[in-house]
């Protein structure tokens, strides 16, 4: 019966469809435009003369002889070895998410189960920590990191990203654990388990949705970060976003903007599969994670 109601085309549903369609156009338009333009030359994609050049490729045909050019992709991936940056990003993102979630799960669980007042104050402190502008933090790290000789390497960046990410992770996972009834793990403790065993056998099996959701946001943070990675990594450990930034040039020197555009498009492609693959987990995870009872 329920499904019948759901499938009836009412005016409200039509309005909802139109609204979603409109949103999709607004959300996707710049990206589709970028995807199309990444096969053009800079003079077309950033044309000051006529924007329709970006669609029809006036200069692309003049300069390369074809309607499309792979110049941006060839330049970024082969000439500038963008794949190195992709590998570094993968490492940074993988470990940042892994460590963030491990620390956050343990801490979030403890905060959700503690009845002492300090748990509240730790959560408040977390909020204050999250309010601190990253730029100020990073400029403070520079000198000690250079002095201890840990600047420029991936582990330093990973641990900094974990730390910066921790308040959000902690908050989100904390509210998720609040949602899991206390009785579950406490009854396990009555059966002779200690706290760790209760966590291991009762909580871990049912916590995945929340963890995956939080993981998605950790992932986006580490993946898109520029402030931390651009200041803390040396050339050979450079991740994608600073690499893209270095394609953009400076006031005095012209950059290779099309390399950046091609790099952005190719950096988004794996995410498409990522989201499709984890779609169910992301959605169910969000569900359980953020709703407080």
């Amino acid at each position, binding site marked *: 019966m329920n499904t019948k109601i759901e499938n009836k085309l009412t005016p409200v549903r039509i309005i909802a469809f139109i609204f979603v369609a409109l949103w999709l156009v607004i959300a996707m338009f710049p990206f589709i435009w970028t995807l199309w333009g990444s096969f053009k*030359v*800079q*003079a077309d994609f*950033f*044309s*000051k*003369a006529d924007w329709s050049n970006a669609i029809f490729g006036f*200069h692309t045909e003049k*300069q390369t002889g074809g309607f499309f050019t792979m110049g941006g992709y060839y330049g970024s991936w082969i000439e500038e070895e963008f794949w190195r940056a992709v590998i570094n990003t993968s490492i940074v993102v993988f470990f940042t998410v892994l460590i963030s979630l491990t620390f956050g799960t343990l801490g979030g669980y403890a905060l959700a189960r503690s009845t002492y007042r300090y748990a509240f104050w730790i959560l408040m402190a977390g909020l204050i920590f999250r309010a601190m502008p990253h730029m100020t933090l990073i400029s403070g790290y*520079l*000198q000690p990191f*250079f*002095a201890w*000789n840990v*600047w*420029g390497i991936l582990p330093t960046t990973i641990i900094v990203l974990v730390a910066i990410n921790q308040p959000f992770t902690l908050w989100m996972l904390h509210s998720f654990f609040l949602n899991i009834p206390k009785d579950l793990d406490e009854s396990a403790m009555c059966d002779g388990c200690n706290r760790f065993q209760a966590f291991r056998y009762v909580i871990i099996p049912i916590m995945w949705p929340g963890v995956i959701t939080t993981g998605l946001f950790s992932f986006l943070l580490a993946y898109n970060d520029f402030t931390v990675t*651009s*200041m803390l990594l*040396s*050339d050979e450990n*450079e991740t994608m976003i*600073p690499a893209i*930034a*270095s394609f*953009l*040039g*400076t*006031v*005095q*020197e*012209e*950059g290779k*903007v099309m390399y950046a555009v091609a790099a952005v498009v190719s950096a988004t492609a794996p995410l498409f599969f990522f989201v499709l693959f984890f779609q169910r987990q992301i959605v169910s995870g969000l569900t359980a994670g953020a709703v407080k009872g």
Partner: protein
Amino acid sequence: MIFKKLILVGFISLFFSSSLYAADCGPNGQSIRILASDFPAIHAIANAAESNCAGSASEFNRNHTTEARQIMNAAQTPNPAEYTSVIVANSTLVQLMNDGLVRPLDDLVEKYGGHLKSNQLITVDGKIMAIAFMANSQHMYYRTDILEKSGVDGIPATYDEVISAAEKIRAAGIMEHPLVMNLKVGWNVGEVFNTIYLAHGGEFFKPGSAEASINNAKGVAALETMKALVEYAHEDHLTQASDDTQGLWEAGQAAIGFMWGSRGGVILDNEGSSAEVTSNTVLSAAPTVTGGSIPGATLWWDGITIATNVSDSEAEATFAALVSGMTSEMVAANNDDAIWLIDGFKPGPAAAGVSATAQGGAKSYPMFAQMGLLHNALGAELVDFLKGSESAEQALSDVEAVYETAAKDAGYL
């Protein structure tokens, strides 16, 4: 004058010195670590150094990053420093020298710098602190065809002539906004003020002190000139920097431009533009004020420095490697990547503007220790005047007030 000599010497030495020159890499087995910005000319120097001397070094490490300026002081402060050499420009040399992070190079130049020209040596108080290898400055670009069509005789040489030429182009109905300038709020707009203020013969600080002295008749005159120019610039001028102005120029939407010399090569090449634009684009000296003689530009150089906090032998090996790259062969292979100060440079049409501006007697970007603070204040506070919501005097006194606060915090006042 300097430039003419430079070119002459360049040609002569091409035939004499360079072919006999073989790389001397200094002490063996040292670690060479370089921090630099990320553009072709710097890659050319570093590549040459690496191919000459990486073999005899225990480590040859390069970090080309857009953030070089942000990390350099923190990187060079510990002992041993993270890098044995930082590649700098006028303003960044000052940034390192303020913290005492670069060493004098006199001994090293004597030992390894036989092939360097005397005007490559950057001296502060008689001590060599850096070796320059390339030059840059802002200057004028103009379209001969459009100037001709709108009845402008000759090349505008002063700001007043530029303004009247722009008016003629507008009156002829060819373009509503014939001027392009890098007026983006922040560093760019501050830099435009610097160039015009220098053309008016202005001084940034009271002699011998760090007290700003721009709120004067020359400062007001410079702002009035700016305002008069802006009348003819694209309406979005407060957001436009080099990429935008270059784009407008290549699209044929401007007839007179004040842009960087380093953009000359890409503007004149056959990519991204039409033959009509490129064949009629000429690069010339920055204008002066009427009756003045100083072109409205700041001259820039890029050069190498050696860190203070590294061992003497590392410093020696790094210096030897880097100067071994400054040869006419390197220049010949990368002639169009920069306006080289090194022997063997063959200036093409893309270098004409910078060399005319330098010959005209333009000033270098000032190397005052506290210049960055003033520049930043200019970049932030002049915008109210350009938007028309503030008088020139008020804008300049705001600049001085902001500078004063910052300079007190930084210990200069």
